[in-house]
């Protein structure tokens, strides 16, 4: 059970050479082995969505994924959002619209909608709420997150504020 495996994880464009047990979860590997603590673990059974990361651009629960499965895949975490000039449009909108309070669930929500807005540039409120229901937030009541996603989407479509 203690045998270890040397793997390479590609995260946010950087390669991490780490040694993990077969049972090491991606969420723990990111946090403990790669030192990327922005990904949070809220429930360890895939229900809360806090640990959501992008695997080859698609949202996935890092707590339901083994690190060893990830060789050859490209992972994006919250640390990889935004450009060199700072916030992504959604990060900016989340601050502007007060879409977060304690911040613990926020990484999973940001990552989820980074992918969603890329594929769905003009979502309705119902569609936003539907997607957002994959992530639990205990602080905000979701109202301002919905507003932030709308605002970010409009901005990304080039609409004036």
């Amino acid at each position, binding site marked *: 059970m203690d045998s270890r495996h040397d793997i390479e994880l590609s995260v946010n464009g950087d390669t991490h050479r780490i040694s993990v047990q077969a049972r090491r979860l991606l969420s723990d590997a990111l946090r403990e082995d790669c030192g990327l603590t922005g990904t949070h673990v809220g429930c360890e059974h895939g229900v809360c969505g806090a640990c959501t990361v992008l695997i080859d651009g698609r949202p996935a629960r890092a707590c339901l994924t083994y690190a060893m499965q990830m060789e050859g895949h490209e992972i994006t975490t919250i640390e990889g959002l935004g450009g060199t000039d700072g916030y992504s449009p959604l990060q900016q909108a989340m601050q502007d619209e007060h879409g977060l309070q304690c*911040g613990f669930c926020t990484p999973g929500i940001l990552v989820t909608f980074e992918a969603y807005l890329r594929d769905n540039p003009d979502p309705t409120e119902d569609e936003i709420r539907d997607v957002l229901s994959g992530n639990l937030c205990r602080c905000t009541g979701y109202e301002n997150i919905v507003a932030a996603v709308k605002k970010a989407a409009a901005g990304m479509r080039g609409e004036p504020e």
Partner: protein
Amino acid sequence: MPKDHGIGASSKRREDVRFLTGKGRYTDDINIRGQAYVHFLRSDVAHGKINGLDTSAAESAPGVLRVFTGADFEGVGGLPCGWQVTDREGNPMQEPAHPVLAQGKVRHVGDPIAAVVAETYEQARDAAEQITVDIEELPAVMDMKAALKPDAPKVHEDLTSNLCYDWGFVEENREATNAAFEKAHHVTTLELVNQRLVANPMEPRVAIGDYAAHSDESTLYTTSQNPHVIRLLMGAFVLGIPEHKLRVVAPDVGGGFGSKIFHYAEEAFCTFAAKALKRPVKWVSSRSEAFLSDAQGRDHVTRIELALDAEGHFQALRTETYANMGAYLSTFSTSVPTWLHGTLMAGNYRTPLIYVNVKAVFTNTVPVDAYRGAGRPEATFQLERVIDKAAREMGIDPVELRRRNFVTEFPYATPVAVEYDTGDYNATLDRALEMADWDGFEARAAESAKKGLWRGRGINSYIEACGIAPSQLVGQLGARAGLYESATVRVNATGGLVVMTGSHSHGQGHETAFPQVIADMIGIDESQVEIVHGDTANTPMGMGTYGSRSIAVGGSAMVRAAEKVIAKAKKIAAHLMEAAPEDVELKDGQFSVAGTDKSIAWGDVTLAAYVPHNYPLDEIEPGLEETAFYDPSNFTYPAGAYVCEVEVDPETGKVRVDRFAAADDFGNVVNPMIVEGQVHGGLAQGIGQALLEGCTYDETGQLLSASYMDYAMPRADDLPSFQVDHSCQTPCTHNPLGVKGCGEAGAIGSPPALVNAVVDALQRGGKDVTHIDMPLSPARVWAAMQ
């Protein structure tokens, strides 16, 4: 035009910068060189006698440093209860021991029996599976009323029964209240359950103990709302470590909602084990463990009676409540059903006689303590449900019945020991009705009917006592702590300043809102002010954040400290400008002398304080740093009115919340954006309670709702878009900011509004349903209709 800075401005939150980029520093993000990991072996039965415990195999398992059991803690104190309640006879409550690790008995599923510390978390968990526990299972005490029968098994053998206390309030009013019921024109009675909830902050609890042998100092990193309280309780009552050898750090904390107020066994364990092993020891709660070890909330069973005269004026109110304490007394558990509940039973109304009886009961369940609102949601729910039922029984419009009984003159002394300083309950009710388009209801109901749905509407007026609390008063009531708050304002030589506060932010945005106040007072930019909180090593002793108290009590302490700073700075400025201190004014960061053109900048004065070359050293000391402790003279009384409109599907019992309007009076508001966010979050938790959430045990004490698959937390598509408003403002009269607090209002005011709306919908659908217990799941609503 909205303000763009200072008090009243919706300043963007500066803490968001780190949270949005993955740079937050939560407790689990801290790793200390050489740290070991602990896994707790927890009881899988609710009640049992430990006849044998064999840890030998675990001790020799790979990587294991040591296995701890209850025997290791025999010379150590138990987890203390912070509030002693006195019963109707004047006797102190029954107060059982609460060991860090079980000693001889387990009393709830999740009770920690042993702790394995190993090099890795996986090794600790693997080794724990090799511990053999011989438990003789005993009958679980689950039902509160059955628990009080003479032949009931006892949760604690050394107590006389499972009754913690039988509390009467106001005991002197009991006979007069009963007499008023004898004479009443009408009496409305309601039996209801305020179900057990789990706070469920998204960040599970974490504790890291660290010990520095060279200085004999212990440090605990923990997910706490009040690090100083933890240091005091753990140091003085559990581990016997003086405060100067103990530091408690609560860094970024991912939500609390009350559940991170309390001192938990895992905190004491990690601190103790780190010293014993000379290694840092880390514990990270799994979500399953959180369900089995975080203090839970509510769990009251109540019978309430309201006596009215022929015109609907309230004559008297009496209640009998059974309050579940769980297996042990959590830190503030005993105060919740008593002083945080009985004192609110007047609500917004002139009810001359009130008598509240509460029986607190031990059961083989996870301990129960404060959860968002803490006693006040329970009070409001009973009161607003019984008023709605009375209105229906007497044929009086529920809005009119409330208005007829509102307190309208202030200050108002209730018959339950508190004095409301200000309020305008008609104003918030008017605003809520307007926002929800109350008058347009019938048209919407007709539209719903076309779809085969029953539409209903419910209102609720609430009041809460916040800003807890005047220390002398709570001391008389049994609190074993003072409830002041503290702040140190340290001005730096170049004019920027740091506020070190005993308040703690676990999502409320203190780092943004507190500087708005200070910046306004001095007239400098908010970016010149930094807030430090969450570390006992660099903040003055303070009581932390709960009970919507941060801005009202912590903010007031900060204002007092800043006033001292400004007073001293004026003396320095007076010296520099060769004027009398009383003639010096401070505005927009400039000191000036009244009636002259003399002025000097804030930064020049602060520099002089630290480079005192030209300085009145014979009158005042150099430096510019002041501390204040603020102890409030009264509670604050936020109040408001909520309107909820629902559609019920008569085929399935499914409830959809169509609209929810909340009009709150929080007094003055420092940051409207943050305040609205607090209300949103409170509403979500209140609507969660009303529709979805419920903690369920089976008869053997197994927690059936022990994961997010089984405990239904509200999600984005369960909730409506909220309409919130805080434009009705009657400032608090007794704190310097005129603020009342906003953290709990949403959770207090929303459950009764929603249940009232569903009952209304069923009544309009022709069903004689007067009450449904929460959560209003489709199954329950459907059953009520049959």
